[in-house]
């Protein structure tokens, strides 16, 4: 290989700056495309950025661990960003209080539907026991989902993958399904997307409408709680 070029790559491969820069550039490109297409759900910026970074890793042969050395500085901000969801919630507190019971019922129904429908479909298609148990908590935000998977005998790292796939699918399909159903109430739209697609759905909802964003964030938190409580109990009853 060309000597100076090789020297540069040896540096780049080792520096966390590369993973950080690649992630930011891929996201900015994905976000620009998303805005250009007027927030078309099919151009979900998480999906586009993930595909761009993955292509980069594949072409350069850069190891995921080396990539994550840099990308972790972005990943770690997920926690503080979750705390920040208190703001949209606070700004819509009156609307949340007015329909507290409806919200609790909708999220509980959604939580049970998410777990039951996924497990039944996968079981009917012949998936094994560990896969089914890893699948059950997939609509919940990653840290809760991995904890539940471990508790009920699933594979936490498989669950982490399923959580992200669910988030992207839900964020992409949410608008399409809700439009087809004729649901115009931003509260119901936000709850549906937050219950189905946790943080990735919430990220989209926040960009589309502030009320939808607040209700999505609320649904993400409450669905995590509902699933963590209900799922182990349900499985204990089935066993």
């Amino acid at each position, binding site marked *: 290989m060309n000597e100076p070029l090789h020297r540069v790559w040896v540096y780049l491969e080792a520096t966390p700056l590369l993973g950080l820069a690649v992630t930011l550039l891929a996201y900015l490109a994905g976000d620009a495309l998303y805005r250009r297409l007027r927030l078309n759900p099919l151009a979900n910026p998480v999906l586009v950025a993930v595909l761009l970074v993955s292509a980069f*890793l594949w072409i350069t042969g850069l190891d995921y661990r080396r990539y994550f050395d840099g990308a972790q500085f*972005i990943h770690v*901000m997920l926690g503080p960003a979750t705390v920040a969801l208190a703001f949209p919630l606070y700004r819509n507190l009156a609307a949340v209080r007015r329909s507290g019971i*409806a919200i609790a019922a909708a999220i509980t129904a959604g939580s049970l539907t998410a777990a039951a429908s996924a497990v039944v479909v996968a079981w009917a298609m012949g998936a094994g026991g560990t896969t089914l148990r890893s699948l059950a908590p997939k609509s919940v*935000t990653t840290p809760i989902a991995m904890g539940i998977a471990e508790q009920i005998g699933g594979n936490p790292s*498989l669950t982490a993958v399923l959580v992200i796939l669910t988030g992207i*699918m839900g964020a992409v399909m949410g608008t399409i399904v809700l439009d087809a159903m004729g649901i115009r109430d931003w509260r119901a739209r936000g709850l549906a997307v937050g219950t189905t697609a946790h943080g990735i759905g919430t990220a989209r909802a*926040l960009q589309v*409408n502030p009320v939808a964003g607040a209700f999505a964030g609320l649904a993400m938190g409450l669905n995590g709680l509902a699933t963590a409580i209900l799922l182990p109990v349900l499985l204990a009853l089935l066993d």
Partner: protein
Amino acid sequence: MLPAITLLIVLQLVGEVIARGLALPVPGPVIGLVLLLVGLMVRGARGHPPPPALEDTAQGLLRHLSLLFVPAGVGVTTLLATLREDGPAILVALAVSAVATIVVTALVMRALAPSPDAGEEGRAGDASR
């Protein structure tokens, strides 16, 4: 901005400590969210609005919430091989379940909380969709 970021991080940390200390099934950041919400409500009850610098930082972070999922999402593409065994069943189950969950959640909410026609919620910051 720095005090605001610090507060968000400290609230998450306190949340993590509470979650572990009390062995709660809730992740630390969600407890941090509740703590911040309670703080905002207490301030609000005393007639103080949220600190603008804190709100700007929080909303700024949320504006690019999608960015924060990219590193984990890239991890998924490197793990797709692990799906090989039950791959088709998993993908179909995820898609069917996503649609079913969206439909059920939205229908229950619509049935129990009729949309306030032309209510202020529907109007707030009305976007293109």
